């Protein structure tokens, strides 16, 4: 029934099945990217210490931004805009983990200790498993 409704809509409008596939694929990819960005924001707010927050921010920032860019590339088709977006994605893929690495490395060099919970290795090794 959904298929028949959709095909009726497509026959009325002037986009074909390829256009519908393009739009829906880009929408799914952008929604996935937005989900990762949202998860990263919640992680930055909720995680207990610096390293876990950096993990949430760095990992999901790369993945979320990349997915949104891929969605935009799919939406803009085979054009010059798409090439520019591809280059932005490539450089973001290089620089974002590098920035995260630099921040984490400087925190480690400055002797910032990660916050360890009661289930950490150092406590459970001697006591109960």
């Amino acid at each position, binding site marked *: 029934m959904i298929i028949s409704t959709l095909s009726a809509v497509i026959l009325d409008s002037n986009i074909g099945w390829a256009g519908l596939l393009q739009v829906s694929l880009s929408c799914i990819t952008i929604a996935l990217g937005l989900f990762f960005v949202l998860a990263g924001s919640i992680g930055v707010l909720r995680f207990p210490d610096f390293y876990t927050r950096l993990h949430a921010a760095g990992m999901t920032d790369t993945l979320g931004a990349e997915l949104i860019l891929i969605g935009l590339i799919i939406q803009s088709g085979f054009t010059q805009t798409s090439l520019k977006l591809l280059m932005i994605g490539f*450089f973001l893929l290089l620089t974002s983990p590098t920035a995260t*690495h630099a921040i984490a490395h400087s925190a480690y060099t400055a002797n910032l200790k990660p916050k360890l919970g009661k289930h950490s290795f150092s406590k459970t090794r001697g006591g109960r498993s």
Partner: protein
Amino acid sequence: MHDPHVILKVISKFLVPFIALFAFYVQFHGDFGPGGGFQAGVILAAAVILYALIFGLDAAKKAFPPSWVRVGMSLGVLLYGGTGVLTWILGGDFLSYGVLAHDPAHGQHYGIIAVELGILCSVTNVMIAIFYAFGSRQPEVDEDNW
């Protein structure tokens, strides 16, 4: 010897030429879209500043000597003002580019390109000069006496 900054060095060595290339893209795109001399100059200076931050101020001063900075700062202003004086000599007002070519539209195009090149040269070198001036400042208090 173990170098703790090897990732930063590799990535920035790869990125610096692309940053400079992007600066020229912004520069020559200024006639048609967003961009222009000031933004391009800042991006071009950012390439040199990134190099200085990663590889040290001495390496950056070897790659982009302070004598170039001094010449470049004044050369940019000279190019900007010289375009204006040239339009005076050709019989127009100060910086009225229309007299630069036979067709006034072409003349405006040439004038904009010359002025933007002047801005690029000046802004790049002023930004690098500010960074060099701050970067090579000696600490007033010794490290031990804090």
